């Protein structure tokens, strides 16, 4: 059982938990994730370790309410327990001092890109960061990202805050101005990562993306999380979740993410009916 120590609503439908998980916090590295299961009947869902405090023994997770499990998770409060958490999972981000790098977080992807950005900054890189969301009410962690970036650009699709554009536009400007950018890290919806990769391909800049395929065990045992990278099947949970974005077949990823769409809608409908939303 894992206790929720703190709960914070970060935006319209994005929630943060600090969770008491001493041993996982001790081993967590940027790029790692956990799988959690709320209760006996629950599904195992992956969430990135958005932050960790080894001294306090806490993990931070940030999740967007998109379906039954995340809605249910959002109803838990400080002092409540989550029955199962396993981690740290996945291969940690490769962090080194390359010179100039760009970190991009889209939507709830701002949370997972934060620890990577911080690590890249601490390793000595000059970090340009871009965070984007559909609208102002969905943005969060602007301050935290600013603290670990040399420059931060904010975009919203509807122009309600920052620049009215999508993240690939300022990215392309940066790539044009700075021929010495060595790495781009992008975490967000698959479609955003796909277009980031299309952009960086033109400039031949290495791009790392973090893939969110559907998972079950998270230990390499089932293969449900497989993704196509450079024509080869890779297991996102153990070989990833970070991959060379120029090799990823994003269309396949997006197809596979839709595998249970009907079931998920039905599960959410029944759940919301039950809790009277």
């Amino acid at each position, binding site marked *: 059982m894992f206790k929720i120590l703190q709960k914070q609503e970060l935006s319209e439908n994005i929630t943060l938990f600090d969770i008491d998980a001493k041993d996982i916090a001790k081993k967590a590295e940027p790029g790692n994730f956990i799988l959690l299961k709320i209760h006996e009947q629950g599904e195992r869902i992956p969430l990135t370790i958005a932050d960790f405090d080894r001294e306090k023994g806490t993990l931070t997770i940030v999740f967007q309410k998109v379906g039954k499990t995340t809605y249910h998770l959002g109803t838990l409060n400080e002092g409540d327990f989550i029955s199962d958490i*396993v981690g740290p999972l996945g291969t940690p981000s490769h962090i080194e001092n390359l010179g100039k790098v760009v970190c991009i977080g889209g939507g709830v992807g701002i949370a997972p890109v934060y620890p990577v950005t911080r690590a890249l900054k601490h390793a000595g890189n000059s970090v340009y960061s871009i965070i984007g969301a559909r609208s102002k009410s969905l943005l969060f962690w602007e301050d935290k990202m600013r603290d670990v970036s040399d420059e931060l650009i904010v975009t919203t699709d509807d122009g309600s805050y920052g620049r009215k554009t999508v993240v690939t536009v300022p990215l392309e400007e940066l790539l044009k101005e700075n021929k010495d950018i060595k790495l781009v890290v992008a975490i967000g919806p698959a479609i955003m990562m796909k277009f980031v990769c299309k952009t960086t391909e033109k400039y031949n800049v290495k791009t790392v993306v973090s893939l969110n395929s559907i998972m079950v065990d998270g230990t390499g045992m089932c293969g449900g999380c497989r993704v196509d990278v450079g024509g080869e099947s890779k297991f996102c949970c153990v070989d990833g979740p970070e991959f060379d974005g120029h090799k990823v077949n994003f269309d396949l990823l997006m197809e596979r993410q*839709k595998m249970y769409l009907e079931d998920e809608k039905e599960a959410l409908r029944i759940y919301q009916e039950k809790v009277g939303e």
Partner: protein
Amino acid sequence: MAEPEKEEKRKKNRVKLREQPPMERARNFKEVPYGYSPDEAVEEASRCLNCKKPTCIDGCPVEVYIPQFINLIKEKKFLEACHKVKEKNALPAICGRVCPQEIQCESLCVLGKKGQPVAIGNLERFVADYEAEQGEVKLPEKPRPTGRKVAIIGSGPGGLTCASDLIQSGHQVTLFEALHKPSGVLVYGIPEFRLPKAIVEREVEYIKKLGVELILNTIIGKLYTVDELLNDKGYDACFIATGAGLPMFMGIPGENLNGVYSANEFLTRANLMKAYLFPEYDTPIRIGKKVAVFGGGNVAMDAARVALRLGAEKVYLVYRRSEVEMPARKAEVHHAKEEGIEFVMLANPTRLIDDGKGNVCAVECIKMEG
């Protein structure tokens, strides 16, 4: 008095295990065989010759005292019979159900030369279930503590058996398990209708009662390393029982289409995550109207029979060799056929075909030479 001829026949053939009728069970997850009644068990036990040199024991990997426990059944001392088995095997209700006795103990039983061997597995299962029903689970005497601590990594049948042996030798034992439930393939692989999960839980409870500590949600290598267990956490030894684990894909086009599962994923969703109870349980599973399962082992049989129970209209089992070469237990092949699974032999899949929307809709096979 039975006529001598009939008496002879009875001795040759074992007492049949009653089963759920095929067409009924093909749509539910309840266990297929019902198990012997006490009378049936005594009758079957009476077939055993109590051999001086019991060859059956040579076929048993943990050397259960087979004639002794069977003899106790004959005497209707069912609890004692169970305790006799447990001296060697901590998981009798599980082993009685899923061990391949036909190639182990039963294959060496002398009765097998002229007729059917003693149904050792069915009897093992009977005594284990009998003990559980009586609610009288006896714990062996506590051994003298050795002061040594052993970490066992993985709680499948290998880890559980090792834990029970070590704790009964007086060592302190901790089982570390990656998943949220113990017992490995027994809980995520083998389906409910072949091995009810309540029975697995019962046997794990027994191992815990012996004093074994069980720690779930812990991946050794990620959360703690073996070095940390040995150097920082005070363990004197580690036993690695992590199983085979990895799924095999065939490397043919179309393998990543939606609707294509490894057996591990399909069975894990169905068994561990209880997707057959969706939406009461949150994990979904996709079943088409027609399902093709590739392979000829126990895993393929289980997958095919689960697909049927999840509502598939037609299930094909596609195997590249001939039926006699199938590695699955004969009983399972028989069960699968009875339930209406269609066997397609000497066919090797070469390509999975897209319906144009990213879902599998057909499979192309080549015919193999017999």
